[in-house]
């Protein structure tokens, strides 16, 4: 009995924040799902007048209008206008006026680091996004602490002399790129006793608040003891700010892709600071086709490339390549 209630509590801990932004009747329906399913929930999607979709780590399901999950849209619970307006209020803590910045960027970070993506009618002013009106869709992404996912790759990222290599993670969306990055940051910052590596100061530029999941500027994820986070800061500017102000030994950032990001990285390289970053893509060749990244890769400064996929589940490390193109690790499948 005790065990059961404790396991329920664990589920509640990671899902409370997510379920807490849903109206009461939806909360009850989701809490009635079996614990096995609750543990797999990755996202909850609400779209006006369409079925409420629950993304599990293996597939997407609809919430059945009375109980459990279903695959047939006809039996699914259909999201209505009242649900949408309640979610807006709950997500915004009843204060949409306080979220202008967040509406401009299209997502809100909840306490505990969960992310809510928002869609609706976008209002622009001078071709800049001003705000969003008539909000009609949400994607609530569950964030679970995943400590230890970087254990297997860390030995490839630290040189025998105890330096961190310039590292780039290449991964398609939803393959655990940010989760892996976060755990690498945490372990580099805390130190890795097994590898005789004492921690280094890590500066994180978290433009999309995904790495540290800051809420009111305070990281909601464990990003390590020696980590400084610039939340919601544009990457290029942020990297320079950290370089000047926080004297980091490693600068980490997510999803580089713009010209100014690459320029900022060049500056960092010249300053002797190590770079830890990610890009979207499913292979080295694909990343190489993006002109901005080609430039970075041609400079031959990145010393370690880690390629991720979902082939053996989220966060499968496909390949680790060193700066000269030599393969250090290759996933052979099951």
């Amino acid at each position, binding site marked *: 009995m005790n065990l059961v209630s404790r396991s329920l509590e664990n589920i509640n801990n990671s899902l409370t924040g997510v379920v*807490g932004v*849903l*109206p*009461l009747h939806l*909360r009850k329906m989701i809490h009635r799902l079996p614990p096995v399913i609750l543990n797999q929930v990755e996202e909850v999607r609400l779209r006006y007048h369409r079925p409420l979709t629950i993304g599990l780590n293996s597939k997407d399901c609809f919430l059945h209008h009375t109980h459990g999950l279903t695959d047939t849209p006809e039996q699914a619970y259909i999201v209505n206008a009242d649900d949408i*307006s*309640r979610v*807006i*209020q*709950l997500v*915004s*803590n*009843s*204060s*949409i*006026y*306080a979220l*202008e910045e967040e509406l401009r960027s299209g997502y809100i970070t909840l306490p505990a680091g969960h992310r809510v993506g928002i869609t609706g009618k976008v209002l622009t002013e001078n071709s800049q996004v001003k*705000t969003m009106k008539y909000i009609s869709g949400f994607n609530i992404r569950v964030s679970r602490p995943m400590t230890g996912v970087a254990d297997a790759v860390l030995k490839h990222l630290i040189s025998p002399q105890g330096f961190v290599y310039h590292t780039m993670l290449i991964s398609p969306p939803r393959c655990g790129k940010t989760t892996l990055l976060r755990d690498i940051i945490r372990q580099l910052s805390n130190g890795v006793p097994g590898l005789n590596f004492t921690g280094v100061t890590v500066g994180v530029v978290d433009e999309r608040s995904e790495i540290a999941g800051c809420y009111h500027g305070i990281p909601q994820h464990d990003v390590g003891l020696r980590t400084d986070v610039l939340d919601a800061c544009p990457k290029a500017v942020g990297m320079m700010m950290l370089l000047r102000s926080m004297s980091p030994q490693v600068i980490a950032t997510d999803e580089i892709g713009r010209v100014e990001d690459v320029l900022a990285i060049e500056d960092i390289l010249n300053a002797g600071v190590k770079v830890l970053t990610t890009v979207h893509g499913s292979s080295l060749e694909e990343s190489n086709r993006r002109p901005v990244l080609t430039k970075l890769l041609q400079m031959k400064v990145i010393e370690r490339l880690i390629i991720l996929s979902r082939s053996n589940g989220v966060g499968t490390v496909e390949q680790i390549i060193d700066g000269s193109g030599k393969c250090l690790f290759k996933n052979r499948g099951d």
Partner: protein
Amino acid sequence: MLTFFGVILILLACSYVGFAVAEKYRRRPQDLRYLQSALQMLETEIAYGATPLPDALGQVAQRCEKDIAALFTVTVDQLISGDGGTVREAWERALKHFCRQSAINSADAAVLTALGGNLGISDQQDQIKHLQLAREQLKIEASKAEVEAVKNVKLYNYLGFLSGLTIVIIFI
């Protein structure tokens, strides 16, 4: 002897009713003024601090006159209870409770109800407009209330005692 006590009792009861009604008329302009300044505070919190609504209402509850603080504290309690209710629902529940203990009438309550339906659900400019509109309407109600107070406070003060006296005269 018994008759004497009866007479005193009737006079006291009727006077009390009269005083209570008069007191409502006397207090209404004052409550409306307090409400206006509370809404002004709320507007400042929203316009300059973009303070989240539960915090903003909490601030207002602390700083406004204590006669009307209940409206804000009850709303905040409902909002932070985590039961998934909206601002409109929380505000309406608080308002119902508040109407019973304050001197505002149904017209004033209607202004506040309309405001509650709009609180927190739009951008800053919109919020400011709604708060200003509510303040404007409360101001009009307040000036009406002043006129009514002048007319009615004395009237009901006397009317209570005199109606008691009438009852006594008729029945003796």
